[in-house]
Every structure is written in C-alpha cells, then in structure tokens.
C-alpha cells in the first residue's frame, strides 16, 4: 500500500514538476495573504502587515526548498543515509565490528570450504551416461564372509548369458604397465584392462580414434591400447597423429587406437579399493588414476572358475530395479553353485556404482558439513549476542525515537542495513578464508577421494554461500530490531535517568538463552571431536606387528620378457633370483644400510589369499577360509623386526631345490591348530606339502583397523612371483628417505629399464593408511575448538554485561563489608548456572548426534562415557574461567567511587 502510494507520488512529482512549483507558489501566496489580512485586522499599516507576514514565513526560497525535499519520495536517499549511518556506527565501535566480522568470516569461510568439497565430490553429476543405472556385480563367499570379491571369467560369461535384468554387462580389472618411452626412464602407469563392452556401457566416447571392438577382445588379437587425455597431453603434447603410432607397453609394441577423456577411469580406483582383494594399483595409495586402457580378453580356457580376477559392471535394463537384479543374480549364483564345486558358498551382491564410489567418503564429508554448520550457528548466536549487547546501549536512542514518531519501519531498515554491512564484510573476508582454507584442505586430504582434484569454489558454491549469508544477515538484523520494538519504553527511560539497577529480565533471558545454546553446540562438536580423537589415538597406537620406522620401501614388477616365467620349471626361476641377489648385494653395500629384504608384498599390502589344507586333515579344510600367503626372503623378519615366537626362521638354505618349508603366524596357529603343535605339520597349496618350521607374531597387513589375517610365510625362493611383482625393504640407520636415491641407483645398475615406484619410508605408507581418519579427526577438532572459543567469548560477553549492570549493587555489598571473594563467587555462580544449562542440553544433543559418527569410530563407543566426561569438564572449566575475569574486574573498583557515580 505504502509503496503503491510512493510510486504514485513519485510519478506525479516527476511528471508534474511544473504544476507542483505553480501550486506551491499559489499556496504560499494564499498563506501570505491570509497572514497579511490578519495583521491588518490587528491594526497594522498595509505595508507593515505584508512585511511582518513575510518575515514570519522565514525566507520564501528556503521554505520552498524544504517543501520540495519533503514532497519527493526518498527511498534511495533513505538507503544512502542508512548506509552512511551504519558505516559510522560500525566505525565508532571498531572492536565490536572486528569481532563480529571475524566471527562471521570464520563461520562462512569454513562452511564455504567444506561445502565446495561436498559439492565437488558428492553433488556434481557423475561424468558417465545415466550413472544411476550402473551396478557393480560382486561375488560373495559365505565361508569367508566376504561381500565384495571380483568375479571369475566363466562366472562372468554365465552372468552375461543368463541375466535379463541387465541390459549389458562388462568386465574390467586394474593392471599396472611399464611404458618405455623412446628416451628416458620407463614409467609405471596404472591401466585398466577392459572388455570391449566396457566403454559403451559407461558411455565414454573416445576423443580421437576408436574404441574397442569384439575383435580386439579375441585371444591372440594384435596388441592395442587407448590412452587418457592427460597422458596424451604429457607425452604427445596433444598431437592428433598419435592414433596409429606404436608405444612400448611392458616391452611389447602396442598400437594406440584412440584417446579417451579422463572420465573413462571415473570410479575405477574406488571400485578396486572396495574389493576384498585383486586391488591392483589401488593399494599404491593416493590418487592413482588409470591412464591406459587395454583389451581384457576374458578367456575361460586360461582362467578357471576358482580364480577371481575380474570386476563386473552392469547397466540395468529399462524398468529393472536394483532389487530385481539382486534377486535374479542370487538365483543365477545358486544355479552355478549347484553345478560347479568351485562355486560352493558363492553368491552375488549387486551394489549401485555410486554407492561403491561415494559410500566410503560420504559419511565423513557429511559429518564435516554438519560440524561446520554447527560452527556457523554458534557464530550467528554470538553476533546476535553482540548486537544485543550493543542494542542495550542503543535502546534509549531507539525508544526515544519511536516515542517521537519515527517510523518503526525506518528503524527496521536501519538495523537490517547495519547487519547487511556486517555480513557483507564477513562474506568478503569469509570467501578469502574459504579460498585459503580449501587449498590447505586439499593439501591435507587423504588419497582415494573421488575427483578431489576438481574441487573448487564454483557458481553453485557461491550461490549457496550468498544464500546462507542473506539468512544470517536477516536473522542477525531482525533480532535486535524486534527486541527494540518490544522494548519497555518506561523502564528504558528510567534507566536513562540513572536508575539502572532494574534490568529488564526478558532481554537478559534471551541473551542467556543464546549463550546456553552456544555452549550446548560447543559440547556437541567437542564430543564428536573427542570421539574421533580417541579413535585416531587408538588406531595410531595399535602395534602393526612390524616396525615401520627406519624402513624404506620400493616396489617394482619384473617384466616376463626379461625375467621368463616358465611354469614347467617352477619354482626355479634363475633370472628373478639373480635380480634379487644382485640388488640386495648392492643395497647392503650402501653406507647407512642395516638390513635389506625382498618380499612379494610389503607389509601393508594385503596381497592375496589361497585355499589350503593341513596334510592329514583335508576334510576339515572344506569349511576353512582362504589363507593369506606372504612370500619373503630370509632377512625379512630381521629387517621389519617381526619377532619369531617359536621354531626357526627361514634360511637362505631354503632354496628352490630344498624341501619346501614355511612359517605360520600366531593367528593361523590359534585358528587352525588349537590344542595341537603346528611345528612339523605340513600345509599344502600350489602342489606342494610344506613343512611348518616356525611361528612368527602377527602383522596387520590389512591395515591398522583390521584384525591381522591368518597368514603363512613361504620363502620367496620356493614361491616366486608369477607376475613379477615385488617389494624391496631396506632398514636404514638414519633417515630412510635419504637412502631413496642410492637405492634407486642400485636397482638401475642391475636393470636400467625397470620401472621402480612407491619409493617412500614405510612409516609414510603406514601414516597414509590412516590418513582419512586423521583428516576427519583434524577438521572436526578444529571446528570444535572454534565453536568452544566462540562460546567462551559469548559467556564472557554476557557476564561482562551483567557485571556492568550490577556494579552499583556490588559496590554496596563491598561497602557493607562483603569480601571481594564473595562478590566474585556471586558472579561466577551466574556463569556456572549458564554453563550447567549448556552442558545439560549439549550432553542431550551429543547423545543424539554422535550416532552419526559410528561408522567413523574405532575402538570407542558413540557414547563413550570417558570422552563425554572429559568434554563436559573442559567446557565447564572454560565457562567458569570466562566468568571469573569479569567478576574480578567488578571487585577491582573502589566501592566509594562506584557509589558516588550512582
């Protein structure tokens, strides 16, 4: 209504400017005439009467100017005036302004940074065609309890033939290849071996050249490969003539048939990581990305039903649901189980692709988003509190102005303009914080988070930030405005007159409520942080069973072209042996090297498992899970300081031609030899009965969080690596990282063309294995600390306010002989009451909220009493301390000064 009216009068004044001037003149003339007439009636001479009338008018032009001014609608002018006024007010209180802007900037910055990660990783669409219909088809094993095993080639072909709920199925697996350039050292690259259906199934088209065809997938077809866009850029500078060229992959000439966008590898790292084994390059950690695609050539003739090397991905047929697919595939698996003994206890688990890719990171990211939102809430409460505190001072001004007829609407505008100014400054600084924080975040982030490298502050992030900021500005600005409207005029004016002791209870309660809410939120955040901290501490203090400190790790894969793999002579492969011996001799000769050993897998690589039986107890073995098979050189246990519990260790005499022996770990002894002596018994796998000669303690080769698996340790000489993969472990006297160049050089001397990778201290690998937990713990702890800091500032603020109000009373008490100690206690008790409310509410909230952390915890319950007790004690102490400072300040004043001031 008002605005319609204003529009109308603006229109009128604009169109009828001349009319208005004329009318104003006429109105003024009329008034002057009336005044002159009155003066005449009072007996003045005509000249005199006119002059007096003009004089009483006080300047004709000024009157016209003022009138024009008032007649013009002034929305923009009002806004400018409010802006000027707001800036002046904020400038007059630099302390308040600084604290408010910093608080907001921290809240908004942290939210923007975390939201941009959530947006970049979880919310953006998957760069594959209709990804919602992509499903992983895992095999399961009821005996071992595994739910995410790769499939066997014959099973995969049966799935393809028998399933109706899938439009198409494709297979792939992660491999690593050595790419030998024309010049320079060979590089080790992650690759995907894919069946010819794969690329069309996920909907990725080559940028250049062609994809794979059924002919490429036939055994014996010419070697071809597609390369990724990144590799095309790095090695070929985007030269379009790369298609048709020949590159050397694992020493074999291979024709490049096309270039794929990097999205062709989307999710493959996460799928490999999710698998119970056959994880390939996924265990190299960090963000290994497949850059080469080669044909998988699934051949049932060379790959039997009891080996499970391939991953099956399917696209649901139109109208089929994941549940229907699960049901159908379970039926197919049951049929195969009846038909083939090797499929005993096997089933199928159909899992949405997006769940495999995002499932592991979603809980942590959502927890972080929740934590950071709580921080923003605390920040808002704090600023509202600050504005209240200032509002209390300004209340008199506001009350007088309202009483004198200043429109409440104008006051509201003014408050909103002020909070908008604050928020704008906060957002500006907050975006800067977000930008810096995001860089820090990405640098700290653990590997394996999908598309983390693409995270940034984009349009959507900005939109959400700005949206949130508008809400913050409204909330922060409206609260004091409404408070002002409800303000009790009389008591305010009485306070003005110097009777300040009667504080209005309502306002105090609201502010106290805000402080209680802040404390409660801080308790919730700190409880979460405490639980994550304890989990991480437990995880870190777990003995992995080997001593990683001081050990350098290097990995390689001996190519079959130069290290022939002749199964008729297995395990006697002299080329591999010569390599090991030559490298070991050179490494041991390096200064600062204490010990060195080769192993099939380094101690944090889960390696592989195999079925086995104890000689003489073959029937029992049917129900036994597979056992982890570790292949090591004699010096392995010494290098990694894995203690021998009983019997003897592996010796160099246990060579390829000597009687096969092995060690078992304590877990194997417990599980498979309860009440028996394992020493001297024989374990059979890979066509040999192997005598148990010793027992070693357990290594946590599946990571710190997982129990150590039952494992056997066979001499590397008696079980050489069929794919040539191996690890070199070197114990250094000093810093293992410093040895890296010398160790690389030693390997290069023996085989200049071998790609060596994963060269790093084993301690780094170990730390990396719990990097995700550390990341979540670190961030939540930082956010919780921030919330606590803000809450403490809130407590301090309100108690300072209370103290300021009660200073006269304190003065009287002290003048009448109360000890300062008692006065301090009185104030601190008020703070304590607030703290207790905050603790109670926070505890209730924490009990409700920490359940969302459950999947992130390790060895600690979601309602761990010790953690909660510690958090409550810490928050309580902080709150009491925050109230002690203002209390002490009150007693520092001379009571006589206080009373006189009153």
């Amino acid at each position, binding site marked *: *209504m008002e605005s319609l009216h204003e529009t109308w009068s603006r229109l009128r004044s604009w169109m009828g400017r001349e009319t208005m001037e004329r009318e104003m003149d006429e109105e003024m003339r*009329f008034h002057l005439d009336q005044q002159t007439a009155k003066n005449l009636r009072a007996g003045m001479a005509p000249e005199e009467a006119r002059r007096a009338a003009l004089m009483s008018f006080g300047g004709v032009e000024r*009157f016209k100017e003022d009138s024009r001014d008032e007649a013009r609608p002034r929305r923009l002018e009002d806004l400018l005036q409010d802006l000027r006024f707001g800036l002046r007010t904020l400038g007059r209180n630099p302390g308040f302004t600084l604290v408010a802007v910093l608080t907001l900037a921290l809240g908004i910055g942290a939210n923007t940074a975390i939201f941009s990660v959530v947006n970049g990783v979880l919310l953006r669409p998957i760069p594959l065609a209709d990804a919602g219909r992509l499903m992983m088809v895992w095999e399961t094993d009821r005996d071992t309890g595994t739910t995410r095993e790769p499939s066997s080639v014959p099973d995969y072909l049966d799935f393809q033939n028998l399933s109706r709920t899938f439009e198409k199925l494709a297979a792939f697996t992660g491999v690593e290849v050595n790419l030998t350039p024309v010049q320079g050292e060979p590089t080790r690259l992650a690759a995907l071996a894919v069946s010819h259906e794969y690329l069309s199934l996920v909907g990725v088209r080559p940028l250049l050249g062609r994809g794979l065809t059924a002919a490429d997938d036939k055994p014996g077809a010419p070697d071809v490969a597609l390369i990724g866009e990144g590799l095309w850029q790095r090695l070929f500078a985007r030269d379009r003539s790369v298609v048709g060229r020949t590159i050397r992959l694992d020493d074999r000439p291979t024709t490049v048939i096309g270039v794929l966008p990097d999205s062709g590898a989307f999710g493959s790292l996460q799928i490999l990581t999710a698998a119970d084994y056959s994880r390939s390059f996924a265990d190299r950690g960090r963000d290994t990305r497949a850059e080469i695609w080669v044909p998988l050539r699934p051949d049932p003739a060379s790959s039997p039903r009891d080996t499970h090397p391939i991953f099956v991905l399917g696209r649901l047929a139109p109208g089929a649901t994941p549940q229907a697919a699960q049901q159908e595939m379970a039926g197919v698996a049951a049929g195969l189980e009846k038909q083939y003994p090797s499929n005993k206890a096997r089933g199928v688990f159909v899992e949405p692709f997006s769940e495999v890719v995002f499932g592991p990171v979603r809980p942590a990211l959502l927890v972080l988003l929740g934590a950071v939102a709580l921080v923003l809430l605390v920040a808002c409460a704090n600023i509202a509190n600050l504005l209240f505190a200032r509002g209390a001072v300004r209340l008199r001004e506001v009350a007088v102005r*309202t009483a*004198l*007829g*200043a429109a409440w609407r104008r006051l509201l505008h003014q408050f909103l303009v002020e909070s908008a100014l604050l928020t704008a400054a906060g957002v500006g600084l907050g975006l800067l914080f977000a930008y810096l924080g995001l860089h820090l975040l990405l640098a700290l982030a653990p590997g394996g988070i999908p598309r983390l490298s693409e995270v940034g502050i984009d349009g959507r992030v900005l939109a959400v930030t700005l949206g949130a900021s508008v809400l913050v500005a409204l909330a922060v600005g409206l609260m004091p405005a409404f408070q002002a409207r409800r303000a009790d005029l*009389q008591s305010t004016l*009485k306070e003005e007159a110097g009777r300040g002791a009667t504080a209005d209870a309502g306002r105090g309660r609201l502010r106290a409520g805000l402080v209680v809410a802040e404390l409660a939120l801080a308790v919730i955040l700190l409880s979460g942080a405490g639980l994550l901290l304890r989990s991480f501490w437990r995880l870190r203090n777990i003995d992995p069973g080997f001593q990683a400190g001081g050990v350098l790790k290097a990995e390689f894969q001996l190519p079959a072209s130069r290290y022939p793999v002749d199964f008729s002579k297995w395990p006697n492969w002299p080329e591999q042996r010569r390599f090991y011996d030559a490298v070991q001799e050179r490494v041991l000769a390096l200064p600062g090297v204490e010990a060195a050993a080769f192993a099939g897998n380094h101690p944090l690589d889960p390696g592989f498992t195999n079925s086995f039986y104890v000689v003489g107890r073959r029937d029992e073995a049917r129900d036994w899970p597979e056992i982890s098979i570790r292949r090591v050189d004699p010096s392995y246990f010494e290098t990694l300081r894995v203690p021998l519990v009983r019997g003897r260790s592996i010796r160099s005499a246990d060579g390829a031609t000597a009687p096969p022996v092995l060690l078992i770990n304590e877990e194997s002894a417990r599980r498979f030899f309860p009440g028996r002596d394992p020493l001297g018994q024989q374990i059979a796998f890979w066509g040999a009965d192997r005598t148990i000669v010793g027992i070693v303690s357990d290594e946590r080769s599946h990571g710190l969080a997982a129990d150590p698996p039952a494992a056997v340790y066979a001499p590397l000489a008696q079980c050489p690596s069929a794919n040539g993969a191996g690890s070199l472990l070197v114990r250094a006297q000093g810093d293992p990282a410093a040895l890296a160049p010398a160790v690389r050089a030693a390997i290069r001397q023996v085989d200049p063309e071998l790609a060596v990778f994963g060269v790093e201290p084993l301690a780094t690998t170990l730390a990396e294995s719990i990097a995700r937990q550390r990341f979540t713990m670190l961030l939540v702890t930082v956010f919780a600390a921030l919330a606590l800091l803000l809450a403490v500032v809130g407590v301090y603020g309100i108690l300072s306010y209370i103290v300021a109000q009660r200073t006269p009373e304190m003065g009287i008490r002290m003048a009448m002989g109360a000890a300062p100690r008692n006065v301090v206690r009185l104030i601190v008790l008020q703070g304590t009451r607030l703290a207790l409310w905050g603790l109670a509410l926070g505890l209730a909230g924490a009990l409700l909220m920490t359940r969302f952390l459950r999947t992130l915890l390790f060895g600690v319950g979601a309602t761990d009493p010790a953690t909660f007790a510690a958090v409550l004690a810490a928050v309580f102490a902080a709150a009491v301390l925050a109230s002690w400072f203002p209390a002490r300040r009150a007693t520092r004043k001379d009571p006589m000064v206080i009373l006189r001031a009153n």
Partner: protein
Amino acid sequence: MGKDGGDLIQGTLDMLVLKALALEPMHGWGVTERLQQWSENELSVNQGSLYPSLYRLQRQGWITSEWRTTENNRRARFYKLTASGRKQLAEERRNWERLSRAVNLVLETTLS
C-alpha cells in the same frame, strides 16, 4: 540535511498537524490558526516547518490534498486525514502519552 536533532520537533509537529486535521479538512493557514488557538497561543507554528510537514505527511499517505474555494472565494489547497493517518495519529498519541508519563515520572522523582 538540516534535520539533525529535528526528531522532536518534526515528530511532534506531525502529530499535532494530524490532530488538527482530524476534525475537518482545512488549508495550511487554517492549521496554523487552529494550533495556535488550541494551545492558547503557546505554540506558534513556523510556516517554514508547517509546509514541509504537510508535504511529508502527504508523501507518507497519511493525508491527501485537493484544491477548493474558501468562503470568501479564494482557491486554496485543503488537506484531509486518510484512514491510515487516523491510525497513525492514534499510535503517536499513545506513544506520546507513554513518553510524557515517563518524563513526568522522572521529573517528579524526589532526589534522595
């Protein structure tokens, strides 16, 4: 801007103008006369403030104006209270009463 500290005068004057117009529509001169008369000559309204006030009240939609002829046949602009102006007057009146009561309370307090 010439309005600094003008809240008291401006706000009060606006209220008084509204009150004067509450009885019947009248021209600016009539408002001056009426206020002077009602206040027993205590308040003499400066025309330099009166007309800006009238224009302001009109912009805010609390009064409207039209040109009419006076009893001695002169053309003059007559101002008239609107419905929202009537409400505004009641509101300002309440505030005024609270304020004056508050001020009185303060003034009547005997110092101890």
